């Protein structure tokens, strides 16, 4: 057999590992389709599940008072229903039936305005309304309490709308960047999720499957080194995952109306961030699953990792508002840096310099994890 030089031989081996993996992947079109469709479905489901602010919470009102203040309170609630639509108002006469309906989940809360409410407001004699809340749903009950408090407080001013008083200090919003709606704000997170999902069907997943099927033995017997095997699989995973996530990004931008960056710098930076994020997550999963021998382990661990990496990433909730211990975790979470960089590039028209810190972290994380992945990989059975 002719001798090749060591570098050419390494390239030939790496290309063979990548080629093998990609050929096997593309012969599984259902997985390719799902890898693309699932993040897009996530975008649609998440966009419609959270909706940013809460809306249409069912509130039943039992008004026993025909006085002006009670009418004002009711009108104020109607104004909120017609405006931000936080609540949907229902009316009834029977208090007990209304409270029972809150218990059985028909309404989120029941507001009872007693017959002496207006009189007590006028007399300033501790006026009260009763609010029965389904407090098992903390977010809804908190929001309804706020709405009712607002409506009650507005009785005195006569309006729900904030009236500008000359003696009060007002804050005027000044948006630094173009308007970003809730749907659009989810796109960076969905791209990062597409990358994460890619790591579950490529890279280390194939090692686990080969081990489970007993095929791993065939290439452990060859001169492939640990670095050839780990590096090759990470690179083939990179090729597949990057292609899928760029497609998800493009479709996500089209769906939500994010304008495409026109300068080459931003486009190149987007590509760099996506590639680095993929390499970080591929290497991280290799560290965690490099010795696993059952696909069930991939299933269990990946569901867990998806949640703990995604939610403290800033994709749906700002990392600044996280409790300090979780904020510390976000400091080492590669998805947090990826989301931050993608948001800057997509919404702030930032260039490479703005996201240098994010890129720097991702590079360090990638190098550390890749070295750990190669070291921890076992070359024997």
């Amino acid at each position: 057999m002719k001798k090749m030089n060591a570098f050419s031989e390494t390239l030939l081996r790496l290309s063979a590992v990548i080629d093998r993996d990609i050929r096997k992947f593309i012969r599984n079109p259902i997985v390719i389709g799902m890898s693309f469709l699932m993040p897009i479905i996530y975008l649609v489901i998440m966009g419609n599940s959270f909706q940013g602010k809460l809306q249409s919470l069912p509130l039943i009102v039992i008004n026993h008072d025909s006085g002006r203040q009670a009418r004002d309170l009711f009108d104020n609630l109607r104004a909120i229903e017609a405006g931000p639509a936080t609540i949907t108002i229902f009316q009834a006469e029977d208090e007990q039936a209304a409270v029972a309906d809150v218990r059985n989940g028909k309404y989120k809360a029941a507001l009872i305005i007693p017959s002496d409410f207006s009189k007590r407001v006028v007399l300033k004699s501790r006026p009260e309304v009763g609010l029965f809340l389904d407090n098992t749903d903390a977010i809804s009950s908190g929001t309804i309490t706020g709405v009712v408090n607002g409506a009650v407080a507005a009785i005195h001013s006569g309006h729900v709308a904030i009236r500008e008083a000359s003696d009060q200090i007002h804050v005027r919003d000044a948006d630094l960047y173009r308007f970003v709606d809730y749907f659009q704000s989810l796109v960076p997170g969905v791209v990062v999720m597409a990358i994460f999902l890619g790591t579950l069907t490529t890279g280390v997943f194939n090692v686990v499957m080969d081990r489970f099927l007993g095929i791993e033995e065939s290439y452990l017997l060859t001169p492939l080194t640990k670095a050839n095997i780990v590096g090759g699989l990470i690179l083939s995973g990179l090729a597949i995952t990057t292609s899928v996530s760029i497609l998800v990004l493009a479709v996500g931008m089209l769906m939500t109306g994010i304008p495409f960056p026109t300068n080459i710098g931003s486009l190149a930076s987007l590509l760099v961030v996506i590639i680095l994020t993929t390499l970080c997550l591929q290497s991280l999963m290799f560290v965690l699953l490099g010795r696993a021998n059952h696909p069930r382990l991939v299933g269990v661990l990946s569901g867990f990792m998806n949640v703990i990496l995604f939610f403290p990433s800033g994709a749906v909730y700002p990392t600044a508002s996280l409790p300090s211990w979780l904020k510390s975790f976000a400091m080492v979470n590669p998805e947090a840096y990826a989301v931050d960089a993608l948001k800057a590039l997509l919404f702030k028209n930032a260039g490479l310099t703005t996201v240098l810190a994010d890129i720097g972290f991702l590079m360090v994380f990638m190098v550390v994890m890749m070295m750990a992945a190669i070291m921890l990989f076992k070359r024997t059975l």
Partner: protein
Amino acid sequence: MSAESKAVEVTGLTKKFGEFTAVDNVSFEVPDGEIFGYLGPNGAGKTTLIRMLTTLVIPTSGRAKIAGFDVETNSADVRRQIGVISQAMTSDLDLTGYENLDIYGRFYGVPARERKERIKYLLDMVGLSSRAGELVAAYSGGMRRRLEVARSLVHKPKILFLDEPSSGLDPQSRRVMWELLRQIREESSTTMFLTTHYMEEADALCNRIAIIDAGKMIVLGSPTQLKKEIPGSDIVSITVDGLSEGLVSFVKALPFVRNLLVEDETLRVSVDSGATSLPALMDAIRSSGGRIVSASIHEQSLEDVFIHFTGKSIREGEAKKVSLFIGAGVPQR
């Protein structure tokens, strides 16, 4: 035997999994060009031994050299010298036959032109040229096995390791496999180390055979030498109700009885001709008051050879250790 001519040198090789000793202080040498058979029942440690020799499992103690390279300290060099056909089918189902060979050739750094010629030659040799473009998932078990033989030769290894190469194949495919291995031997004088639990296979292919049991090597010799040590050619098994020591001594003394083993109430009698000895044996037992429950004849098998050398039947392999953490997923050895 000069140092250069040893394909395999094994000295005191041992592998323990916890308390269980899978390979127990085994020593032997295989000269270049020999076909060496490692024969034993399931669970005897054949696969563990071959895995140690092919760098997949690290020995607990002892040494093994393949083509002069130590399996522990020069594992990368060992892997360049060997081709392996594992016991389980290990070709990629999602790749075509050609792709399996091509990718494997690249793992070994075989240059493109040489690889192409070699793959064509090997596919012709194993009779898969016309099916080379099909996915391996569409192959029969025999075809897949033949492809794996071709794959193991793509880099022209000096030593070929075969772990139960005909296991799971039908008798016809098994014979095709033997022919193929003989052809490889003739064309390239490749050293072959094969494990098997088929006496017939070891007999058909091997220059020398090592018989092993419970990790220990019991005897080593050529098939002819080993056969000479086993008296008779047939085994007559007769179960006698209320077998007595007197009856055993009586049967043992019969002139045509070459050897006798007793298992519970069954006499296992080695004879030269089962067909003529059976009636005579039955008459003799009845005449001395024995009540025969059943009788059968079979040709000597591995089991009989094994019984001769170990004094006991081939047992099922030890229960495999299964992870407590992941259930029945993957046996740990």
